[in-house]
């Protein structure tokens, strides 16, 4: 019981519940299965990227370039698929390979030239995106094959509402879930995952214990790239068009979700549960404000406020804990 009170996740969860109550009181269609499934589908994109960012933050780094990576992966995938055909598997394979390759470029620059990850990825964000814009001429791409369109509407569970409209659990949500489980196993049950936490907590010690820091870095940024690739395909599935500017700009939403979920920008801490709650909070906020007909620019203000409150609350709790620790003996 007490342990729960000390966890950041508990508070995020309570805030989500609170918001849900407020929103539902204004608009009853918020708390429906249909809306839930809808959110689970449309936020797969954000949720998958957030997992990648969580890995990077745990390892003590940061990645800003993943939206550009996702955009490039999406373009390459779209062009290849429309020109040469293929299937869902090849689409994912192509996008993920592109993502991994670009992620490795980040890792190598960060490690070999010893440049801070934030600088590196701001630079590569601009390079990746810039090169893409030049090569694509900023053109939109339409006309995906039918199988691509059909996949987006596939569901594993289908229900019908009073109006006769079908809804349900999308296959896209399942992809998110599968990645979530994979990420959980990596973080919790593999030496690699524990190495990421170790590296984020104290890189020198991690090297002394015997971890290969370069390999860990390569993995983290490659994994981020891999997930960016998947997210790129999912974005294409969701909107069925590919535009150069449809993803770039969402970095901050993703980072916000992960930080709201309790991951520290200083590395070494953060959980998947927290991150998913962070994504949920952002989803509820954004969706809820729309449902309450609040003008959309308020969304940014709210997100900003929540981040500040959340980060200062956790800093406050940490300070309290340190106080308690120092003052053990005094009565």
């Amino acid at each position: 019981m007490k342990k729960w009170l000390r966890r950041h996740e508990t508070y995020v969860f309570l805030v989500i519940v609170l918001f849900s109550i407020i929103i539902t009181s204004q608009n009853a269609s918020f708390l429906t299965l249909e809306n839930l499934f809808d959110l689970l589908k449309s936020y797969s994109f954000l949720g998958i990227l957030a997992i990648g960012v969580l890995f990077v933050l745990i390892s003590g780094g940061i990645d800003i370039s993943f939206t550009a990576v996702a955009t490039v992966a999406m373009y390459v995938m779209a062009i290849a698929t429309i020109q040469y055909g293929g299937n869902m598997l090849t689409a994912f394979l192509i996008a993920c390979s592109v993502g991994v390759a670009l992620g490795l470029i980040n890792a190598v620059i960060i490690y070999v030239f010893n440049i801070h990850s934030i600088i590196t990825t701001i630079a590569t964000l601009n390079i990746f995106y810039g090169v893409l814009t030049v090569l694509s001429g900023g053109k939109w791409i339409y006309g995906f094959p039918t199988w691509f369109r059909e996949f987006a509407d596939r569901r594993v569970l289908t229900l019908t509402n009073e109006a006769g409209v079908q809804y349900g659990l999308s296959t896209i949500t399942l992809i998110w879930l599968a990645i979530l489980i994979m990420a959980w196993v990596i973080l919790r049950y593999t030496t690699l995952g524990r190495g990421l936490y170790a590296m984020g907590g104290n890189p020198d010690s991690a090297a002394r214990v015997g971890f290969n820091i370069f390999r860990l870095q390569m993995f983290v940024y490659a994994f981020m790239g891999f997930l960016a690739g998947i997210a790129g395909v999912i974005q294409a599935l969701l909107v069925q068009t590919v535009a150069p500017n449809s993803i770039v700009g969402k970095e901050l939403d993703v980072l916000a979700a992960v930080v709201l979920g309790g991951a520290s920008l200083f590395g070494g801490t953060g959980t998947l549960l927290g991150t998913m709650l962070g994504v949920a909070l952002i989803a509820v906020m954004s969706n809820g404000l729309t449902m309450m007909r609040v003008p959309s620019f308020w969304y940014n203000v709210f997100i900003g406020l929540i981040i500040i409150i959340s980060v200062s609350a956790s800093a406050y709790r940490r300070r309290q804990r340190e106080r308690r620790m120092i003052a053990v003996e005094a009565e």
Partner: protein
Amino acid sequence: MSGVGTNMTQPFLSMQNVSKRYVGVQALDAVDFEINKGEIHCLVGENGSGKSTLIKIISGAVRPDEGAQIEIKGERFLDYGAIDAIHRGIEVIYQDLSLFPNLPVAENIALSQIVARGNRFVNWRDVQHIAEEAMDRIGVELSLDELLADILIADQQLVAICRALTRDVRLMIMDEPTASLTRKEVDSLLAVVHDMQSKGIATLFVSHKLDEVLQIAERVTVLRDGEKVGTFSSQELDDEKLTMLMTGKRVEYTQYVAEGQNDDVLLEARNLSKRGNFQDISFQLHRGEILGITGLLGSGRTELALALFGANPPEAGEILVRGRPTHLNSIQEAIGLGIGYVPENRLEQGLIMKQSIGKNIVITILKKLLNEFGLIDLNATQATIHNWIEELSIMVPSAGSPAQNLSGGNQQRVVLAKWLATDPDILILDGPTIGIDVAAKRAIHDIIRELAKQGIAIILISDEVPEVLQNCNRVIVMHKGRFIAEYDPQQATVDEVQDAIYLAGNYSRYRPRS
């Protein structure tokens, strides 16, 4: 039980002609060194004499210069490196402990074992098991689920030892393991070292606390300016002889005698209280007075110091500076009132390691070094830097080299210089000589006394009872957040004060198995 398993015929580790040269310094100069199986061996020497460098060479972290010979159990090494050291059972606990603050205790202990085994997957029951086994070997109990950052430094040290014990250790090396521990905790640590000895594990440790060196070590190796003075059996040494060997000169302790009492009260506390920190604290601090505060770690002394520095405002009571009631809600306010504070944990919060020594010294006083154009006056800056380097006899290749190249003790002096440079009226020193060698300690004591003579009021907080007794006008013992006794150093003895501290506390966190 002493000398168990000591095998005189063949040493465990033997090194000949070990030298190491860094740019501008000969850190080690043709040193020979030996340690036997199961021996407890101490390495002593002044700051910068090459102790840490020798340790790094033994652990393979630093390669010695050409011509060194290294033998472990009779086996010669041509190109000795970290892997050789690890495979032969040599484990080092560095001063920073090299642990992971963000991970639980159990994982901190077991992680290196898991990596070494090359396991892909982590079995948490296994982690628990490895940790428990390591704790059993030396009979300690730690809460395995707690995050490392949430446990005491003394326990963190035990975690580091346990981690080393997960391997088949033959030689455990500790660089200044006791610098941040209280007396009681040191005793527990020494008990652990004895316990390891009975299992045939040799221990080599570095310490500046000579009494504890003499208490535990079988043999002591003394280094001076990178050269070996000799290896001695601890029976043939005493405090004075050891100091003599280390410094090459006699360092005498003199009792500080205050020059009459000044009635001018600079700082006064009236019934200060803060829940969980300190309770009902009242005292007066006069101009030119040195007030000593001692007590166990966790007795509230640091919390009180922080309160007087505006960093930990009390909940009740009054603080008066020069007779005027003040709130002291922030550090800026305290600094504005002429209060300076040298923190306890200087290794962590004191220095910008990659910056030059000079910049580190003047960083707190940049405002004072501006010339009429509002730019930094380079001549004044250089003069200040050199003045402090000389004043504290900081051993530096040049003021421009980065702080991280300095030996541990010299880094501490730089931090001290940085705070002394602010020229405060009221100075709070929290453990100012931790990790500093005898001669330098003496130099710092002289500085403190000199500052008092100039009229600065000083609060000197220290674990070491002799330190406060020798340098203060008055000594107060703190326990569980309260002042429990006050002594006049002219009359009180070290034992008397020591007793007051321990009898009051029943501080038994460590449980020896026997």
